[in-house]
């Protein structure tokens, strides 16, 4: 019997650490001090936000938009947090990138008052949304209308939980539905290059393609 997939969702309650950085020196010093939860929020949870513009984490966004240090913003955006086994190693990489930049440009500009980098952390609440699917057709229906918080939980947050860059969707599709090809196509969707709405579209497209293949009993003869 196929094990069903139960959709869950997470929401985050924001907590302020009260710490803020007005320039890159302060940013570096505080990245070194703040909690793992704080680093997690400003990087991994970036994708829980709606409007992903040019960057892939809050530090890069602030460096690019508020300080107009575009080169640093690009370098910070290029760090893939999922390459690291733990926050500690990831934090070291962030510090190294910011530190190297400061060495080259030792007098970085100050952010405008009110536009400093505010260090926050979150408390995450996870809850089932009352949707359980048993096959791919039901999965397609569900993926099209669940809240983006659910896509985030199963596609982004799962990577830390499941490990190895694997999301909940592809794991279930591979293990329970035994559709390795579709699982691999979903894993090939680059989490960094899309916002959660785009991720939803791509998963739906791939699933639809798979379902079409399943129901077509006759192809055009060559």
């Amino acid at each position, binding site marked *: 019997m196929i094990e069903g997939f139960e959709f869950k969702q997470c*929401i985050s309650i924001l907590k302020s650490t009260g710490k803020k950085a007005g320039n890159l020196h302060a940013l570096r010093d505080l990245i070194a001090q703040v909690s793992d939860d704080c680093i997690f929020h400003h990087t991994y949870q970036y994708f829980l936000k709606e409007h992903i513009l040019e960057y892939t984490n809050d530090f890069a966004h602030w460096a690019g938009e508020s300080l107009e240090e575009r080169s640093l913003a690009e370098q910070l955006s290029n760090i893939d947090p999922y390459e690291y086994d733990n926050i500690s190693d990831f934090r070291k990489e962030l510090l190294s990138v910011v530190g190297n930049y400061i060495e080259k440009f030792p007098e970085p500009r100050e952010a405008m008052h009110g536009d400093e980098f505010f260090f926050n952390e979150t408390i995450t609440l996870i809850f089932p949304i009352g949707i359980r699917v048993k096959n791919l057709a039901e999965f397609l229906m569900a993926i099209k209308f669940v809240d983006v918080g659910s896509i985030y939980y199963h596609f982004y947050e799962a990577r830390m939980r499941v490990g190895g860059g694997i999301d909940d969707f592809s794991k279930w599709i591979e293990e329970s539905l035994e559709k390795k090809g579709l699982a691999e196509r979903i894993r090939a969707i680059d989490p960094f290059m899309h916002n959660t709405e785009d991720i939803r579209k791509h998963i739906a497209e791939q699933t639809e393609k798979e379902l079409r293949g399943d129901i077509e009993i006759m192809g055009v003869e060559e």
Partner: protein
Amino acid sequence: MINQYAGISPKGDLLLLQRLARVLGGRSFLHVNSTREGGGVAEILQRMIPILQGLGIDARWETISGDEQFFEMTKKVHNALQGNKETITDTMWQHHFEINRQNAANIDLDADAVIIHDPQPGPLVEFKKRGVWIWRCHIDISNPFKDVYKALGRYALKYDAIIFSVSKFARAMNIDEFIIPPSIDPLSEKNMELSDDEINETAKRLGIPTDRPIILQVSRFDRFKDPLGVIKAYRMVKKYNDCILLLAGSPATDDPEGAAVLNEVKEFAANDPDIHILLLPPFSDRDINALQRMAFVVLQKSLKEGFGLTVAEAMWKGKPVIGGAVGGIPLQIAHGVTGFLVHSIEGTAFRIRQLLNAPEMAETMGGRAREFVRKNFLITRQVRDYLSVWYIMENKGKSIIEF
């Protein structure tokens, strides 16, 4: 009650609300502020308390009473917390405490969770009986006048947690600090859906022509809302695009500064027949709703702002909003996506022209704006967050809570 929001609010928010209600249902939740009417806090509590009660929470709302001296002093505290230099004597602080002591004797402060709104009832924490006590600070205290902050801080630190509206309003205080933005109620008179007939009737009654695009700013006549800057921007636009400017606000009979600003605005408008200055009486929510719906673009060209919820109100009506990049406005407007953030009169004029010349872009932006508000600034999200904070404070030490 909560069912009324089905199909409007995000489903996930409603589901989590139901889960939270299951664990907190039947328990008592007290809100205390200093006024039943007027101001954003009273407006939100009026709407929020019935929702909480509908979820099975024993929610109550109490207000403190005080004399003229008390409210004069708390007005000074309010200004000082936002950075103004104010002199508040020890006698005044004692009076502040004494009024709260009297109120504590009259109000039943026994509850499982208590939220005290703003500085006026702050000292009530000294009369805490039990439960989780949270101070809800609606203003920006990131750069306060130190003496006053220090004096009020003795109360603030006795709370279990503080809630601010925006990260940048907060400061390091050695206490749990949560960030919960305010919200609008999509079912209230100010935000509910209106028929085209009603919108047209309102325009007719208020004498507003609808044959050309309307540029609207709804705000008090206050220099920080830059009404003269708005007129200047409109004049720059008017050279290229025919349009109507509508400035709507309440008459400021009790505020001499407001009356002076209004006169300046009228004088500056200089009988331009296409500038309409509307003085709406208090409780004109439905008219404001109609004005926002008939507008083509809405401005909130503030130079200084609290959260600026009028931005979310206009966005909810599918309007692109051009807002000053101050206070909570940048949290609501993603520049170029859900509206435009501006830093000058010229920028305001340029963005108005851009929208007038690209109505399709205005429509797309307005659609995104509405969706952004739906996901982030509806009252159900704020109730969800308040209940979450209550639950989090009773389950301290966990960064992940699974239901």
